[in-house]
């Protein structure tokens, strides 16, 4: 089993719903984004196009971050998800440096969204629900808790909403599809094969589990 995602760029409208829903779901503090949108321009005036790439941790099959982790805090699970055990992380940030996709974030200390005015009620709830440890690296984990809980309840990630990552659920154009890349009948595997999906920067030989359909 290898959980993966296919993002259809022809459907993406660049609305930031994925990035904001992720931030909201995990009450991420200012400066920390696990899901982002990269927006670039290609071409020369007057023929200019705008490209939007939603990016997140690629959950690589050959991850560099787990190889360099000196404490074993970064691990690749059997289902392909790269997770960080915050209790083991020593905060050396080698994983953050070595990730060519820059998908990791270091949590120094909690900052307020409104500096000088204290934490809002929303932020206080977030601190209780997801107490982030200081001096530790965090990243997208494909909403592994939702996946694990869903599977325990007999649900199928990517199909049942409760067991699917929030960025996939929040996408208004259904540009994101989640599922098992090793299952040839899954939607992600079919999309990957039929639409000639590409990985970002394959030259790094990390074999990302996030694929993009360019059109």
């Amino acid at each position, binding site marked *: 089993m290898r959980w993966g995602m296919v993002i259809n760029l022809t459907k993406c409208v660049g609305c930031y719903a994925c990035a904001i829903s992720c931030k909201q779901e995990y009450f991420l503090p*200012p*400066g920390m*984004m696990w899901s*982002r*949108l*990269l*927006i*670039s*321009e*290609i*071409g*020369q005036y007057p023929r200019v196009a705008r*490209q939007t*790439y939603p*990016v997140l941790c690629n959950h690589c099959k050959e991850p*560099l971050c787990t*190889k*360099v*982790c*000196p*404490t*074993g*805090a970064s691990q690749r699970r059997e289902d392909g998800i790269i997770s960080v055990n915050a209790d*083991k*992380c*020593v*905060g*050396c*940030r*080698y994983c*953050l*440096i*070595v*990730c*060519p*996709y*820059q998908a990791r974030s*270091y949590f*120094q200390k909690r*900052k307020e969204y409104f*500096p000088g005015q204290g934490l809002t009620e929303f932020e206080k709830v977030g601190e209780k629900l997801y107490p982030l*440890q*200081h*001096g*530790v*690296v965090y990243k997208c984990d494909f909403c592994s808790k939702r996946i694990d809980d869903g599977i325990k309840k007999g649900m199928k990630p990517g199909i049942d909403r409760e067991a699917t990552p929030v960025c996939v659920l929040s996408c208004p154009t259904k540009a994101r599809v989640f599922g098992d890349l090793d299952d040839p009948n899954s939607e992600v595997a079919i999309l990957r094969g039929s639409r000639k999906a590409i990985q*970002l*920067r394959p030259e*790094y030989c990390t074999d990302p589990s996030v694929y993009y359909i360019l059109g």
Partner: protein
Amino acid sequence: MKRILQSRPYEFMIQFTPQREWIERRGILVWLALYFIELGAGTFIVSSIFGVLPGMFVGWLICAVLGGGLHLLYLGRPGRAWRMIISSGWKTSWMSRGLYFVVTFLVLGSVQMILTQRLSSTTGLLIITDFFAFCTVAYAGFVMNFVNGIQLWNTALLPALFTLSGVWGGIGLSIVVASSTGAEMIAIRLEPWTQVFLMGYAFIISTYLVSVRYSGLAGRFSVRNMLTGKWGMLFWGLVVSFGILFPVGATFLLRVQSSIIANTFLYILIFFELLGDLSLRYCILRCGYYQPMIPSTNFSF
């Protein structure tokens, strides 16, 4: 208001994105820690080969206190550093391997110094200790070399450059310690080696920059930034002028006039050499740029 990391969303990983974690704010400690670890271990190697016990102690001390201490200070959770020892990270992680090298070197080095103090014959132990000291000098280059997203670092010449500069710095510091503790003859024997290593150092820097220049767009951008960009003054001023040209030129002129260089002037030359080396490492860390992740024609160069 403090600047938030990656606060320019229209540039992050779309243009060449600088690494910041190991050079900005607390990251400055990594720069110093890597330098002092190598300088300390290099000094220990050179002093042990030439029998300068105070030099061995100074090298050991620099490596343990400055190198190790700064590394610990940088960690987000220094209290968990013991986890790096018990984990099996050494199989794949150069940082973990480096920790083993440093710890083994420090333990064996202290035993070596005690035995040398008691005038025991310790050739076998000396070889093993120097081997681990050498690994300590070399590992930082491999730590950075593993980062394939940064072309400036992802070259086999980087470990060679760091190793050479670590030993070269060690020679300089050993000369200072030897001449200031009365071992003038050893200092005189060591002095020509600084010139040899200085030539090798200059050669590797130029080869390194040329090879990175042709390794890809990010490499080209990094080298351009280092030579003619924001950090050009630092590179040409401290690294090249004070760190290489001034010591070479001054030594040559003094050699023409007399065969022995005054101690004070030698100390000044060595100080500038070490300062130049430290500045080079700053430039290398500062000019480490990631390749853009997605296609764009909006590069800033």
